[in-house]
């Protein structure tokens, strides 16, 4: 059962009586839009990390370029949500549903920005022969990307308990980031010529950690979508 059916319950304005109402179809389409936005953001993050590790400048530049598309899609999705509210006057669960979609879209767009920043910061690192703690950053990137894909799956399946589990895992990301932070700071103290590489990697780590935070925000949005309650997770 798609999230539309869950959020809608009985479609509010089934004029024909036969087939789903226009409102239900439109709500389902809005969810598709947000899911696609999510997939594009997850792709961007993975490609940015891949470009960093494999020194692929073309890949990184493609991520930077693609951010424009992500922003445009989010803008048009937000507008579509507002039009939906104005046209169909949703209430209760359905209204929660549309609001949650708008909130999620906004989080995803910012996550996209962070992914693009990772790509931007990774570009000058391609030429450097030594990228300290690259393994750690790569692992951090992998965990964050998993979180993003997981939360999108939880949204698709309307699975709030899975969303809560995902939010709980944010701890792991924070721990790895803080350890990385300490390691890079120490490195910079001991090796002044590593400062340029280390600072770029630090900022990449920071952006990754922010993406992780926003995954937790989306998890909260999903709980809101499901229960109408605003709950702080993680």
């Amino acid at each position, binding site marked *: 059962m*798609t999230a539309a059916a869950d959020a809608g319950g009985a479609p509010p304005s089934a004029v024909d009586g036969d*087939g*789903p109402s226009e409102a*239900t*179809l439109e709500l*389902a*389409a809005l969810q*598709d*839009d947000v*899911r*696609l936005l*999510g*997939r594009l953001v997850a792709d961007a993050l993975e490609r940015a990390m891949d470009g960093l590790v*494999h020194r692929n400048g073309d890949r990184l530049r493609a991520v930077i370029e693609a951010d424009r598309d992500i922003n445009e899609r989010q803008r048009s999705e937000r507008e579509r949500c507002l039009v939906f509210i104005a046209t169909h006057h949703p209430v209760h669960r359905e209204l929660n549903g549309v609001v949650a979609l708008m909130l999620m879209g906004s989080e995803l767009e910012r996550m996209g920005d962070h992914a693009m920043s990772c790509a931007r910061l990774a570009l000058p690192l391609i030429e450097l022969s*030594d990228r*300290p703690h*690259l*393994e750690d950053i790569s692992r951090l990137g992998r965990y964050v990307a998993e979180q993003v894909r997981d939360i999108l*799956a939880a949204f*698709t399946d309307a699975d709030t308990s899975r969303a809560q589990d995902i939010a709980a895992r944010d701890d792991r990301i924070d721990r790895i980031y803080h350890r990385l932070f300490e390691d890079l700071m120490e490195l910079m103290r001991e090796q002044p010529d590593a400062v340029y590489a280390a600072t770029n990697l630090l900022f990449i780590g920071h952006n990754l950690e922010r993406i992780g935070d926003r995954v937790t925000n989306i998890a909260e949005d999903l709980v809101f979508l499901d229960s109408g309650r605003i709950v702080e997770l993680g």
Partner: protein
Amino acid sequence: MTGGAGADPGLPEAVRAVAPAVLDLLGRHGSDAVLVVDESHTVLWGNTRAWEAMDRPPPPPDPVLGQPRPAPAGLSLRRWVRDPALAVAVGRAFQEGVTVDEEVHMAAGQRTYRGIVVPLPAAGGDRQALVVLRDDTAARRLTRAHQDLLANLSHDLRTPLAGLRLLAETLVGEARGDREATVAFAERIAVEAERLHELVSGILDLAHLEADVDRVRVEPLRLGPVVERVVERLGPVARDGGVTVQLELAEVSALADPARLEVALSNILDNAIKFTAPGGEVVVTTTVARGRPVLAVRDTGRGISAAELPRIFERFYTGDRSRASRSSGLGLPIARHAVEVQGGRVGASSELGVGTTVEIRLRPVP
């Protein structure tokens, strides 16, 4: 099938007569998955390939068309194809009334499909669309392998070729008439040409492996005989290098692709021999660690620093230039690729001044 073939007034009578047979043929033997969905993305009909791709038994065939009957109620396309790109394409096709062509990812991103959504003429108020899914994975993989190959060849051949040209020009110019210099330069040209040869072979091997991923064939395999074959083949190389190769083989089996495992081991062993000084030793072992079969090659070379270690499996990375003279930088990446496509992993550990161990971790026999 709704919106049936007989409805098109432009179709010649003869074609219309055989249309059901043609449909049956395409439906049963076509390689594309074809479905018909309604506005809520419910699957109304699917051809044989679609049901196979969905991993579901097809409904009993339609007695007239020989085609699977309409789908059981409530099957949503969104449930089957999780990639939202397809759902958005279907939405667009319905909303704008246009044919939409979109890239769709399936099997957790492992396979790429081309999704084509065609809005169908409305039959009695209910709007429907035709969805065609064509597996594009192999074609894309080949294209990507091709592009990589071209990029690598043009980039990495440039330097050795420039070096060769410089040597030859010097030979013709300044060194002309100087017999000793001539011989020296000619010898260097020979060495560089040999390096180029190895480089090209390596690039082609890698390209071949990457394009060939669909034909990996794993089977239960005793590791001992594989190791013995590779060690014997590399005997002359070890002797030339003054390096002894020892075997410590436990009776271990793995689920592996024999040809690719040999390529991997061969590259790793060759590398170990190359980077161990004369008088040194290379030991090949088979063991089981944490339930998984492990093939390890341990050398007594001078080791790899912690900074360099993560890079040894990178293409064309030859590390410390002074010992890179005979290396194409492709041996370990080739080994890694050959192992990973059969579901295994490679790893390395090293201690400066002591030696390096490269491990192949394989899948256990179930």
